[in-house]
């Protein structure tokens, strides 16, 4: 009895501090919260929602898309939600979260599936602010189902990953580390941060950064060769699994919109989901991962690096998307 009483007293003190802190200290939204709030605020006018990793976040410009749509007479307004390394199956949770709001004009959700069907829960990113922010109570059942459905042979590994997810959820609600972050925000250690940030990489690190940059920033003949390699591999028409995009489409359709899928104009070869190949209700796939069909997106002058377009390429890609979606909408009619 005494044990229970003491436990409850401890919990009371614990909760009191969290409540008082919440009441006294101003709430500072995280990256996800900020992005979500801005998207949700613009949802009333949005008819085409782009969702995906940095290929959406950094390479699609709704302004350029909307301007092109207006020019060609396509009655559409675009909005986007793009986050680094935002991968396939993880998108499902976000579709559910975002579409839980009222979207009066939404017709199409364009989902970038370039990065494939996994979740970006890499140990390198564990306990980073964004990862922590993502792990809310609503993510738990979703994560449970995700691991339950996947490779039963890897159950011990999945169980361990699931425990790590639970740790993230606990850390999220216990506000672990937020004090240090708050001190950062109060600029107590302001002078320290630039000092550390300016740290020069060690000699080996310098070399690997150089090598990675060289690999990412191919120039001249090396770049052309990479494009040719990609074009050749695309001819082999590799198909990948399509169950998960079909699931994503079902979720979108349940909310009264249509789902299209996107393979971004990256310089490495991505497999198409097989359900995009044939059938009466095949997946609509906008495949830009093909230098022969979209040579303008693979011209060296519009490339920032192997994966991304530069400032010149972004509006170009957005305009092509507008035209492509216009054609698709007319076909659908």
């Amino acid at each position: 009895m005494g044990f229970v009483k003491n436990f409850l007293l401890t919990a009371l003190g614990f909760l009191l501090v969290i409540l008082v802190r919440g009441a006294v200290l101003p709430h500072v939204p995280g990256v996800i919260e900020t992005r979500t709030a801005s998207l949700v605020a613009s949802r009333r006018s949005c008819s085409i929602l782009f969702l995906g990793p940095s290929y959406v976040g950094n390479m699609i410009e709704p302004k350029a898309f909307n301007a092109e749509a207006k020019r060609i007479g396509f009655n559409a307004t675009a909005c986007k939600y793009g986050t680094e390394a935002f991968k396939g199956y993880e998108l499902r949770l976000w579709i559910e979260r975002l579409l839980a709001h009222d979207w009066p004009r939404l017709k199409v959700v364009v989902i970038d599936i370039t990065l494939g069907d996994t979740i970006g829960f890499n140990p390198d990113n564990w306990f980073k602010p964004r990862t922590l922010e993502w792990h809310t109570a609503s993510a738990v059942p979703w994560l449970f189902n995700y691991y339950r459905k996947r490779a039963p042979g890897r159950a011990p590994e999945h169980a361990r990953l699931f425990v790590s997810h639970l740790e993230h959820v606990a850390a999220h609600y216990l506000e672990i580390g937020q004090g240090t972050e708050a001190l950062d925000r109060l600029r107590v250690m302001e002078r320290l941060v630039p000092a550390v940030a300016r740290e020069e990489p060690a000699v080996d690190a310098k070399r690997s950064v150089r090598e990675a940059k060289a690999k990412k920033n191919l120039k001249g003949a090396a770049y052309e060769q990479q494009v040719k390699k990609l074009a050749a591999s695309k001819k082999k028409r590799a198909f990948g699994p399509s169950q998960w995009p079909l699931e994503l489409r079902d979720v979108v359709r349940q909310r009264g919109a249509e789902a299209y899928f996107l393979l971004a104009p990256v310089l490495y070869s991505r497999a198409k989901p097989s359900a995009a190949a044939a059938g009466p209700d095949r997946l609509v796939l906008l495949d830009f991962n093909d230098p022969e069909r979209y040579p303008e997106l693979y011209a060296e002058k519009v490339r920032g690096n192997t994966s991304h377009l530069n400032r010149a390429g972004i509006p170009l890609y957005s305009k092509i998307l507008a035209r492509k979606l216009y054609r698709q909408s007319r076909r659908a009619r």
Partner: protein
Amino acid sequence: MIFTQPVFFLFFAVTFGVFWALRGERARRVWLLVASYFFYGYWDYRFLALILGCTVFDYTVALWLPRVDAPAKRRLFIVASLCANLGVLGLFKYYNFFVDSASELLRAVGLPRFDATLKLVLPAGISFFTFQSMSYTIDVYRREIEPRRNFIDFATFIAFFPQLVAGPIVRAKTFLPQFDTPRRFADVAVRQALYLFAVGYFKKACVADNIASVIDPLFSQPTAFHAADRVLGAALYSVQIYCDFSGYTDMAVGAAMLLGYELAKNFDAPYLSRNLREFWQRWHISLSSWLRDYLYIPLGGNRGGPWGASRNLMITMLLGGLWHGANWTFLLWGFLHGLGLAVHRLWTARVGGGGALLSGSPRLATILSTAFTFFWVAACFTIFRCADIGTAFRFFVGPVARAETLRLAPDLWLILAFLGVAHFLFKRYAQDLRAFVARVPDLAFYPALGAIAATLLYFTPLSAEPFIYFQF
């Protein structure tokens, strides 16, 4: 599984609940063993075979030892135990280091290099449990203790999770007798245990881990920073390693107390030591006393005069350095401590200690000798922390400043001074604090504990740093 991670709290809550819910002592010990193996296997289940193998081997050796009277045969048994433990340690921890060093040596004299290194993962805490197991068989060999017939007891002694991976190194003669008396929850000093755990958590998560994020860049690129900041970084690392290791120990002692068991004290305000000898009586006490009892004294100890004792000290400290890992920096660290201890011994024998020079002003003598000891210890820890001897060399003799020299925040000097004062005050008022904790009514203690826990979590860095001593 690190003590500061949420998964540990979940694990401990289950272990604690089931442990006290079980009625019989035997069932509790079996449960403790299962929990300890789960804790260890959580890192990598393959390591379980290793710890189980070491346990079975030493258990068997110790059982056989009393049945053998012939000294030669007894020696054979104990040598077998030592070879098995040191062999495991040598293979996992030192094999690649020695092979690599030999290969480098061949290259240096113009002969072709060879690569016979193995891809081995170092099992967590291997140095701790092998030393613990060795001390048991040595004590049985010396007839200081009787072998434990109950395998579960012995296996639990080796694998007891609070101290399994980073000590304190527990002696069989102090720990195993605790299994002979039934544990009662009413006897557990719950408040002291929770207080210790909270203090340990504060040291580890709020101090050590926050310092780590500040000084890690400095140790990876020492010459990019101003010389004054390198001095600051060296002092901060001394604080970090102390808070990391002693914080871990406090949590280990607190967790063991909650299960009704006592662990040995491992730290006693080491940075208030007035000389290196005192430092080693206050720092990692379980290792230094282990080295004293099983290495320094068998080597001859203080016999052989000041020079003989100095030689024994040097050998002990060199091996103590090597115990930390296969790196020349650890050897140099051990050498410098051995040198410091030997010089102190010779100096004391001739002059009568540092205080003798300032006999008229004992307080000043204490301050100066404490500062000098800290300076030496911090310099040694700097070498200990650097990735290799080259980096350590650059740390000490790098340029004072460069055109693009980086600076640490000057606020850190204030933080260092604050931590120094806290170290002093905590030692001075530790007894009073413990008495206060015991005296406060439940209605104040437990809500305060909850409030402190919420505040500690708030200032815990997002990524939990592994304990520094896990790698040893």
